């Protein structure tokens, strides 16, 4: 249910993004989606990889500091109000969203979003009770049908 997200520390200066991408390329690890959080001084690159273990090892070998977090991939109806409905549901459950970002592709009429919750287990429970589909990790790592 939960998906492993790999984060790494970057300094906020030119050329910092290409190196980790090149390292992953050399390791033959595909990037499923990513987001970059940045401040004036540093950035945190968050990655969903096809193989987070090999990707993480390759980055650590190259001297990067990494962190593994469990996140949840959620299907959201791709229509006006789709996300708002979902957020309202979560709002009532006491689960906090630390941050979220989207996949670059969807499934039919659904978009797929990645959520970092403070309590992922509780979030999954709430979502499933409401009949919202949580994408299986295997599907995310392998390839979500387009």
């Amino acid at each position, binding site marked *: 249910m939960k998906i492993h*997200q790999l*984060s790494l*520390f*970057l*300094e906020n200066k030119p050329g910092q993004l290409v190196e980790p991408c090149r390292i992953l390329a050399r390791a033959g690890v595909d990037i499923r989606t990513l987001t970059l*959080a940045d*401040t004036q*001084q*540093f950035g*945190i690159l*968050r990655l969903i990889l096809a193989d987070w273990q090999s990707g993480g090892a390759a980055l650590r070998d190259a*001297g*990067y*500091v*990494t*962190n593994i*977090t469990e996140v949840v991939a959620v299907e959201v109806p791709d229509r006006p109000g789709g996300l708002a409905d979902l957020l309202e549901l979560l709002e009532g459950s006491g689960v906090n969203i*630390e*941050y979220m970002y989207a996949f670059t592709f969807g499934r039919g009429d659904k978009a797929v979003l990645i959520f*970092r919750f403070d309590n992922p287990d509780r979030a999954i429970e709430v979502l499933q009770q409401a009949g919202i589909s949580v994408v299986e990790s295997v599907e995310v790592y392998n390839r979500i049908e387009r």
Partner: protein
Amino acid sequence: MIITASETATAGYHPASAPDYVPPPQLKELQLARLQYVVRRARDHVSLFRSRMEERGLGPRDVRSLEDIVRLPFTVKSDLRDTYPFGLFASPMSEVVRLHVSSGTTGKPIVVAYTKDDLDVWTSVMVRTLAACGVTQGDIVQNAYGYGLFTGGLGAHYGAEALGATVIPISGGNTDRQLMILRDFNVTAICCTPSYFLHLVDRGHELGVDIRKLPLRVGVFGAEPWSESMRRHLEADAGIEAFDIYGLSEIIGPGVATECHCHTGLHVFEDHFYPEVIDPDTCEPVASGAEGELVLTTLSKAAMPVIRYRTRDITAFVDGPCPCGRSIRRIRRIGRRSDDMLIIRGINVFPSQVESALLAVEGTLPHYHIILTREKGLDHMEVQVEVTPEVFSDKVGALEELQNKLVYALDRTIGLRIAVRLVKPHTIPRSEGKAKRVTDQRNLDA
């Protein structure tokens, strides 16, 4: 009515403190006799010292007065490293009952040895130290200096026990447990580094333990330079009286000098450790009261006599008598060392202060680098800190909080607003095992 020792004890007085009050002429007589004896012993048993004496054409009879000490060769830290492990011992191993080892930052460690008599001297100077800090029988002392090869833990331990206080030998680390013990046992005095105590106070705030409301009244702080502003913070935040103590393993460990309740410099236990203040460049004695490098000679140590040890610590003699009545001389609080001081906007800053602040926040010392620049005539100091896996988080807020904590800790330790930049691991240059700590890019014309 039975009167206990603690009721009769006046502030800072203990029978062991009697030598603190010896009249100067008598003290000088004792110092000269001891100096002559220790020089003879060192010459007879330590080949390094003997060869240096011979190079200068000096024999033990050439020390006729205390002033003659300036003719003797200096001992420097590298001498202790170069002769590791046994080279400076003046007693046979059968008489050595204790060894301490300090981790060298540049390779080989240094070792210090004690005979039974040396340990007795050490205990007595620590009793005098704690007594001057107002610790008496009946006090409950939490000793949070590290036990083991470091001299701090055992030095404070034996002193406090001999004084008749109750000692809790908790050693360093495990801050939450330290707070629990501090509260549950009604601890009245604590021995630790000032930066660790700062950390303890901060952690107390987080856990809702207000140290001001506990019976703790005395902090015996040493093993690193700390400032008057830090003293004010610690005293206000913890409701204690903070005392600065001084010592170094090469000489004996803690117990070389201590503040009394007047807080006007540190009294040197000069019946055992003869102090000089010299110009670090010319090696000549400075004028009375002028600033210079502290040089110490062990007057009574048997296992490892150390003659004219250059401490690299910068201080000055404090002139005049101390209101506390002690006749032994005072030195100014040591805020810096001759070899690593930086002056930033007129304030003296030491890499050691940066280290203690980083250590207090992160628990372990990350690799760091200090960069000094000058913008529009104003000095700017930035500390680059490598992000370690222990502190890295996927949340921006957590890293920003870490950064803020580091800025705050540096501000409190140094008294300057210092920029902190988190950098990628392994980006800070390392050379010859010891990291290059400072890059000074200040252009004085800018």
